């Protein structure tokens, strides 16, 4: 076998390549050897076939190329052995061409033998990414287009790489996003693939450096300098990511592919949302979102249009589904997709909420959070872990979405009487409680808190729940421990119970001293945790104050001049 392969390698003639095959193989070979050999195959096919040129294909891209042929690994091993690369230790042109021919044979169902390649075979098919789709050799008819397509595509890649340079990281390869630039002859469904590549790049790169797309703007110099060698590595990474991405894509409807958010993208968007706004069920204000999206370096009119598309209720703030839609549109735009005329159905907030129901978000969030949170989110980590524990108990985020309006819960109205009966200490905090209370009605530990009023600050709802246990704890020293029990099941009765705290307290304080002491200990721990939270939220409060001041200034400018 090896001897035959050696014979095949040593002398050109036994390996008969048609002209089309020679063109393709030389192009493929050129890709695998990098830019050294330039663009499409140069020189007459015979010359390229005859003697090994100085260029040898790098093993990495070649391996990826072979994997893209979707043949089983054993077959690929056989092919590698047969073509002689293992024997000579490198992939020269002859080895490469033999390997390609063997791949074609294997894909046609013929056994992997040297004899197979003697006969006429269709071209090998490589399921690759968009850039390589041009050299997808389904039939020779495409061949004539490929030669012209490839240089075009490479130049397009260059331009788009500059656009996408924020996705580039040192260790990752740049995404290849040029669906618009794709020549019309390319199969349409490949257009959807690059978007996911971009996303996978985005995600993989950002998981390594978390806010990288919006913070680390890689200088265009290195990126353009790398572009010469990029294409082959490009393909390799794309092929890898492609194989990763193919699975989820196959499950979704193709027509909406560019506008469909995959699970990984969803997680990334949600994490970004949380970095801006800890509460996933509240929303991001316009100015915060503007600062964030401006980092994407899209033009202001485009950002304005994206906002217009995604802010469905035109309230100047983005809820989580709106934010995901906006983010998705931005990523799509950065990857070269034109912005749609209207919000695609897969990006509608209702669709997003239905597709990714909230409780699942929370669980997925927590899981993904604990697994994949990158290093530079450590500051958030601490707070988040603390909040997680509270969240788990409270389980209030699920309901807060419904509460962002002026929902007045029956429990809260039932809580109106208690405040006057309480000691004066909680009174200063009642105004805060007013806004917070409506956000977690189920938080029955806070059931003794004051009732609500219209939410003062919608973007700091989270400040409220942590502080509630503190205040409750203060009062609990006067009250019975049963008021402290996080009896989530006791909704109504708890509120009723708190109406008469004092008479109950005097009777039970003597009975439940021990229980009180253990509860005090627990509450002290919670207190420490919440004190930390408090400080963080105070900062948030300051930021919100500043926002408010800015808004008021704006309003002043717009306010009509009273003196006419």
């Amino acid at each position, binding site marked *: 076998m090896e001897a035959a392969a050696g014979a095949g390698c040593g002398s050109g003639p036994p390996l008969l390549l048609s002209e089309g095959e020679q063109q393709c193989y030389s192009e493929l070979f050129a890709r695998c050897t990098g830019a050294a050999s330039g663009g499409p195959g140069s020189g007459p096919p015979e010359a390229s076939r005859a003697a090994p040129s100085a260029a040898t294909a790098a093993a990495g891209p070649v391996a990826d190329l072979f994997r893209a042929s979707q043949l089983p690994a054993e077959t690929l091993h056989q092919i590698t052995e047969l073509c002689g690369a293992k024997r000579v230790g490198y992939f020269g042109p002859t080895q490469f061409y033999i390997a390609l021919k063997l791949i074609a044979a294997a894909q046609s169902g013929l056994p992997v033998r040297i004899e197979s390649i003697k006969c006429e075979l269709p071209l090998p098919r490589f399921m690759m990414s968009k850039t390589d789709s041009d050299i997808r050799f389904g039939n020779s008819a495409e061949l004539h287009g490929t030669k012209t397509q490839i240089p075009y595509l490479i130049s397009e890649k260059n331009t788009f790489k500059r656009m996408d340079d924020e996705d580039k990281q040192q260790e990752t390869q740049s995404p290849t996003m040029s669906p618009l630039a794709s020549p019309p002859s390319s199969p349409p469904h490949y257009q959807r693939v690059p978007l996911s590549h971009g996303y996978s790049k985005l995600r993989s790169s950002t998981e390594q450096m978390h806010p990288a797309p919006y913070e680390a703007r890689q200088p265009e110099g290195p990126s353009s300098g790398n572009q010469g060698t990029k294409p082959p590595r490009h393909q390799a990474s794309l092929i890898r990511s492609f194989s990763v991405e193919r699975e989820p894509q196959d499950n979704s409807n193709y027509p909406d592919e560019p506008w469909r958010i995959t699970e990984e993208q969803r997680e990334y968007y949600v994490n970004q949302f949380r970095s801006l706004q800890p509460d996933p069920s509240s929303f991001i204000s*316009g*100015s915060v*979102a*503007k600062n964030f999206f401006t980092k994407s370096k899209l033009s*202001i*009119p485009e*950002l*304005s*249009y994206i*906002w*217009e598309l995604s*802010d469905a209720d*035109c*309230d*100047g703030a983005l809820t989580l589904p709106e934010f995901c839609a906006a983010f998705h549109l931005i990523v799509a735009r950065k990857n070269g997709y034109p912005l749609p005329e209207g919000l695609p159905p897969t990006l509608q907030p209702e669709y997003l909420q239905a597709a990714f129901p909230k409780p699942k978000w929370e669980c997925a969030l927590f899981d993904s959070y604990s697994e994949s949170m990158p290093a530079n989110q450590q500051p958030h980590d601490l707070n988040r872990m603390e909040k997680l524990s509270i969240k788990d108990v409270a389980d209030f985020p699920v309901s807060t979405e419904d509460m962002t309006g002026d929902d007045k819960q029956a429990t809260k109205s039932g809580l109106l009487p208690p405040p006057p009966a309480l000691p004066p200490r909680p009174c200063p905090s009642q105004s805060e409680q007013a806004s917070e209370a409506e956000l977690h009605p189920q938080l029955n530990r806070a059931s003794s808190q004051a009732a609500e009023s219209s939410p003062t600050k919608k973007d700091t709802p989270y400040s409220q729940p942590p502080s509630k246990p503190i205040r409750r704890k203060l009062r609990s020293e006067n009250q019975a421990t049963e008021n402290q029990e996080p009896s989530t099941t006791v909704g109504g009765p708890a509120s009723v119970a708190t109406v008469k705290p004092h008479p109950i307290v005097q009777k039970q304080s003597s009975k439940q001293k021990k229980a009180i002491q253990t509860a005090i200990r627990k509450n002290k721990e919670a207190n420490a945790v919440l004190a930390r939270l408090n400080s963080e939220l105070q900062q948030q409060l300051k930021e919100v104050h500043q926002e408010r001041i800015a808004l008021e200034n*704006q309003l002043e*400018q*717009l*306010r*009509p*001049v*009273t003196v*006419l």
Partner: protein
Amino acid sequence: MAVCVAVIAKENYPLYIRSVPTENELKFHYMVHTSLDVVDEKISAMGKALVDQRELYLGLLYPTEDYKVYGYVTNSKVKFVMVVDSSNTALRDNEIRSMFRKLHNSYTDVMCNPFYNPGDRIQSRAFDSMVTSMMIQVC
């Protein structure tokens, strides 16, 4: 159905002006410009003591032989001016009011966009489509 719709900022420069693309569009621009004086006059006449109660809809500003010009001012002194074909007698006052209301709503939506700086020209596509729906369909 309006022939020309304009949004004028507080400082009396146009934020958005669009007319049916026929003949001499500059004429519409001129009409809108001259109507600003009338708007100011109406505002000053009405709003001396009762700024809060001043009605937003100003009504017919002035008629010409071919066109009628209606005005509407917001609380932030942004003016909407609409030029309507005089031959379109079917248009009633209520319809004009509703058109202005739609304009105002779309305008507030534009303002809600954080990427829109007050004082910029309005380039929102939603606003454009809303205005298109209000304008005469000239084939």
